[in-house]
């Protein structure tokens, strides 16, 4: 990994484990009465959100503030972008302000890559979701949640997810979460199975490092974690499946299906959940569902990423660990 975090596929196993271990230490800060570290004092981070995402933005903002960075929030709505300003002009404005890092969410796949590699800006670029492409910090927080639940909080330190079987269910076609997770979980040694209606499986999926199945019931019994994806109503303009009820019957997770999963298996969801369609209230509110944990873990993971990218004069990731003394 270079100075940026653009794609989960850029991370090596050691990079990913270092981020997860660092996040474990960051999580301890959240348990303290004063949830603040002076680590990024004097650094300026811009949250550049061209697409609405309250959840991801406040998670990044909380992480940045806990590390004492100066935070600038930029939403495209009502800004010069809506008046036609280009990404290049926005980047150059930020560069002139002396920004140290840009957290970017963009509707176009590849926008963060362009920002990082165009030479418009010198800051570190962190991808907070681009189109249907990648959402690397989401994949990292999912892996962190799995490692905590399936391996253990302390036992997991230094460990990856080898041998764990993860099933990802739903709209894989439009999901950057699914893409990022397949890349990262494969790097961490887990076996991933995607389950979706054939219409919601992307072309070229056979080149991905995972299995594809069309029958949810057949995969449940051998899953250590089942990750439900959101069915985005706004993207269901084409006829991907006959009715919501039909989708729910074949690919929704209810109490009966959850009972068929192994004792230790967990249910995950990147949120926001559409209760009654992809997941029933009974499952969403059960102890095995990690949605709320995932939100808390998101702050720890983003703190770890920001620390590793900005904490020193060069990124720590992909460098050999420096002896403490």
């Amino acid at each position, binding site marked *: 990994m270079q100075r940026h975090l653009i794609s989960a596929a850029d991370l090596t196993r050691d990079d990913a484990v270092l981020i997860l271990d660092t996040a474990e230490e960051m999580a*301890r800060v959240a348990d303290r009465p004063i949830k603040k*570290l002076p*680590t990024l004092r004097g650094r300026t981070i811009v949250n550049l959100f061209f697409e609405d995402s309250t959840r991801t933005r406040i998670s990044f903002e909380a992480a940045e503030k806990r590390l004492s960075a100066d935070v600038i929030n930029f939403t495209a709505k009502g800004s010069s972008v809506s008046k036609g300003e280009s990404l290049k002009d926005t980047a150059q404005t930020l560069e002139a302000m002396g920004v140290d890092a840009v957290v970017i969410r963009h509707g176009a796949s590849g926008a963060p890559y362009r920002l990082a590699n165009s030479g418009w800006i010198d800051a570190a670029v962190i991808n907070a979701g681009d189109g249907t492409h990648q959402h690397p910090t989401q994949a990292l927080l999912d892996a962190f949640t799995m490692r905590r639940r399936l391996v253990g909080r302390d036992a997991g330190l230094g460990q990856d997810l080898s041998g764990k079987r993860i099933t990802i269910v739903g709209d894989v076609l439009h999901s950057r979460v699914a893409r990022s997770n397949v890349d990262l979980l494969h790097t961490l040694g887990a076996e991933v199975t995607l389950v979706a209606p054939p219409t919601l499986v992307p072309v070229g999926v056979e080149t991905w490092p995972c299995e594809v199945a069309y029958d949810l019931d057949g995969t449940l019994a051998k899953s250590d974690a089942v990750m439900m994806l959101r069915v985005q109503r706004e993207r269901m303009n084409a006829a991907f499946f006959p009715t919501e009820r039909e989708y729910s019957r074949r690919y929704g997770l209810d109490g009966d299906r959850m009972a068929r999963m192994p004792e230790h298996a967990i249910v995950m969801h990147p949120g926001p959940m559409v209760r009654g369609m992809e997941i029933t209230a009974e499952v969403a509110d059960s102890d095995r569902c990690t949605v709320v944990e995932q939100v808390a873990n998101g702050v720890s993971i983003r703190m770890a990423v920001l*620390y590793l990218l900005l904490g*020193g004069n*060069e990124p720590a990731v992909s460098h050999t660990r*420096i002896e403490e*003394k």
Partner: protein
Amino acid sequence: MDKQDTSDMGASDARPVLEGPDIARVLTRIAHEIVERAKGADDVVLLGIPTRGVHLAQRLAAKLEEITDRKIPVGSLDITMYRDDLRMHPPRALARTEIPGDGLDGRLVVLVDDVLFSGRTIRAALDALNDIGRPRAVQLAVLVDRGHRELPIRADYVGKNLPTSLRETVKVQLAEEDGRDTVLLGVKQTQ
């Protein structure tokens, strides 16, 4: 940097200044000094600074328990994120911060480290403590004080004062981490 990275120190020119039995002896002495100054070590909490400070804190706690017949809480305090030189080096991997269950409020906290040098690590540790609780008092115990302070910081308990030149390096090895107990004095290799 507070202490010298000794990876550049040639093993051949490093000479031991403290051996295993000496280290055990100075720790026993420090334990007695702590009991004497704290009048019984009732409210003492030992906090080691990773990596080797934590092992020293555990050893000191064992000795304090022998002397006072009381369990002494031990924790560790990672100061990485409070360092003032973060922007001068690549970020380091974080170590463990473990605060004993009863917390630090109103306690006498003894920070434990292996080498006291510029004093910057201890300044960072004081900042870190500030965010964690409000001890009654903070004291500092170190195995070796090698001088060259850059801040007005002084240890309360010193195993050995070791006058050094800046061209020298001090390396503490402990059985838990390195397989043997010794303090090595070497000459910094210039590349």
